[in-house]
């Protein structure tokens, strides 16, 4: 992809990231951090790509390690976030009303 397009995408994504979370209440700081943390587990995609391309055993070994770690990050991240948010269940509606 053209470098210019990448820069534009990067800049726009920065703004989206900033704006989207800028009003979060402190109650949600931890789940939000945890959810964002799970999202960067998508490096798993990168790990799979380099594993596919691996020619030497060293490369493959490192790639496989990367896949294990990335899977832990991604799957564990979403599961733990869900568990945290489960606690808010039932209270959700009242809270939402209140925070409006």
């Amino acid at each position: 992809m053209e470098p210019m397009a990448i820069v534009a995408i990067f800049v726009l994504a920065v703004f989206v990231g900033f704006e989207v979370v800028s009003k979060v209440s402190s109650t949600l700081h931890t789940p939000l951090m945890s959810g964002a943390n799970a999202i960067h587990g998508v490096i798993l995609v990168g790990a799979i790509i380099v594993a596919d391309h691996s020619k030497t055993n060293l490369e493959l070994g490192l790639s496989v390690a990367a896949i294990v770690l990335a899977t832990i990050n991604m799957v564990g991240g979403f599961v733990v976030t869900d568990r945290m948010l489960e606690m808010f269940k039932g209270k959700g509606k009242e809270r939402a009303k209140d925070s409006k």
Partner: protein
Amino acid sequence: MSRAIYDLIGLSAGVCFILALKGLSHPRTARRGNLIGALGATIATLVVFFYASEGSSLPLNNLGWILGAMVVGLLIGVPAARKVQMTQMPQLVALFNGVGGGAAALVAIVEYLKLGDGATVAEVVATVFTVIVGCVSFSGSIITFMKLQELMTTRPVVFPGGRFVIAGTLVAVLASGGWVISALGTTPLLVLAGLSLLFGVLFVLPVGGADVPIVISLLNAFTGLTVAASGYVLDSTLLIIAGTLVGASGTILTRLMAEAMGRSLFGTLFGAFTAKPQDVAIGGETRTVRSGSPDDVAILLNYARRVVIVPGFGLAVAQAQHTVRELADLLSAKGIDVAYGIHPVAGRMPGHMNVLLAEANVPYEQLAEMDEVNPTFPQTDVALIIGANDVVNPAAKTTPGCPIYGMPILDVSLAGNVIFLKRSMRPGFAGIENELLYDPKTTLLFGDAKASLTKVVGALKSL
């Protein structure tokens, strides 16, 4: 699958991530947001198996290894996430963040090993950036994990001349980064990775306990940026978008968290470079305190018109949320005005107390944020502090230089009576003495919060 379709699916996964962050920012949609994020991640992961990138063909090479590694990851990650106790979630998040950073660093290392002479300078720079930041994030997160898990001291670890060592390491990291860029090779890369890991450790050691969540959030943003850089090298729009999103939102979140805790982000970040060993006198205390029985506490409560309950980390440890609710209901039934004063950083993660009390179905109207409840303390007869310490410690106002100095606190000392439920005279997370324990209007009820509360409830009932 054609490249265009592959890319479009990737972009839709990116949109899922945006919607996930958006959802996670509002209480009502948070859970759905998380699920949308998981959906995006699933889509993104599935689609790579159906796209043969340049010079490759389907099915993917090493498919067995890839799937096997994913299964291993699942078998580790899911049970860990499922079984962890509420009180230990923050360290688990730190750990997950660390392994993510480690994965990004490994991906970059493999990419680097394959970079031939065809690589552009920008690609090499992006790879080096990912290795450095990924390694820092990895080792830094491990240290934060150890601090939170109390495998090591939660107090800032500072040694004389420490800041020079840190600054020196940073220079060495940057220098070896330059070396890697100018002379492609495995040795320089290993040196770079090693130094980066070391720097991550040194960077986090001097951070005081209370600042640890801020640092986790920061390292989280860092890992996001490494993912974006990997996306650039691997030509994946999805990774660029996802990584940048996490980097940007993580940065904002770090700032918001720092604000909520009354910490300066700059101080937290560069504390490593400026921290000096501090002498805070601990122990050898011989002053007397007034400790009371459950009956004394029950009587104080019984004749109050307004009671503010201040929960802290100890409430979570003792799992006393249901008992505290029982007590509050009892007091309300007697016509006493009861509120919970929730400090933004009470417990070990932001929102910890809200989560805990929500579990016990405490009515939402009774939860008052710090700004709401502080002005009401002068009209409050009893402040009942259950397993909290740092969040009511006046040292935050009176002792410049102590680890929590400048953090806004709950002004319980303005209440008519102060009752502490704790097990001992030991300090809280920040490791500093609390003068309020020696205050003449303070009554201490020693023991596990749940046991003490049960006794107080019993005493109240028999009054």
